[in-house]
């Protein structure tokens, strides 16, 4: 972990949050593409926090796979079940 990587990760997180805010007005009509896009951005942010801030990138693969499976399952359920 270095300052440079943390700074880059933080900038990416803020940009992705901004992008989510830009997308959100289009979600009012219930577009599946927009909903999927918003959840995709949320999943990317979760992985940036976990892998860069929490240093999961250095951990045993089992922890990485467990988080991937859990987050992707939750996000997929939300997208598929959305009214």
């Amino acid at each position: 972990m270095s300052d440079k990587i943390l700074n880059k990760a933080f900038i990416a997180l803020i940009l992705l949050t901004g992008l989510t805010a830009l997308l959100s007005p289009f979600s009012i009509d219930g577009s599946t593409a927009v909903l999927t896009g918003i959840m995709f951005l949320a999943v990317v942010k979760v992985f940036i926090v976990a892998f860069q801030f929490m240093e999961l990138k250095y951990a045993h693969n089992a922890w990485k796979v467990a988080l991937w499976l859990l987050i992707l399952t939750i996000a997929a359920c939300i997208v598929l079940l959305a009214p």
Partner: protein
Amino acid sequence: MTHTINKYKNFFYPPGGILLWIIILIELFTFGLGLVGLMLFAKEDPALYHNSRMELNATYGAINTVFLLASGYFIAKAVLRFKQQLYEQAVRFINFSMLGGLLFVGLKGVEYFEKIQAGHDLGSNMFYTFYWLLTGFHVVHVLVGLVILAIMKRGIKKNKEAHSLDDFEASAAFWHMCDLIWLLLFPTLYLIL
């Protein structure tokens, strides 16, 4: 630093410790179940859920996301400084991180106050039951995280050697867990229904 990274590769020593990572996964699973439950109920009465969701202030949610992300960034910096044995800088970054957490709780308080004033309490409808339970439970985690950070900061200030890197990483991992949960709650509750 290399020794620490090599240690992380061991299944039993992920950054923050194995017990905390088990807790993190269980917490994410629990909140995930709550969100899936929310979506299942929303399927039964989409109009009610959509109208209720539109009553939430997404701007507050977005600002709170920035507060928590900034707070997580600062605590990651604090861990880095702790590893570099720059303890005073680590304490400064813990302060910034706690400020982010306090701003999150403050804005959440304003949001809750507005909701109560508007008569949207736990029993208003199923959407608000989910809203209060999910966000309320999350705020409790943030408050617990703030207490842990305050204790950690006090310990480092009193005696620089009082806490091991493992203690500090575990505290930081708990704090990041609040970020992870919020990053899933925010879009699902405020943006997509």
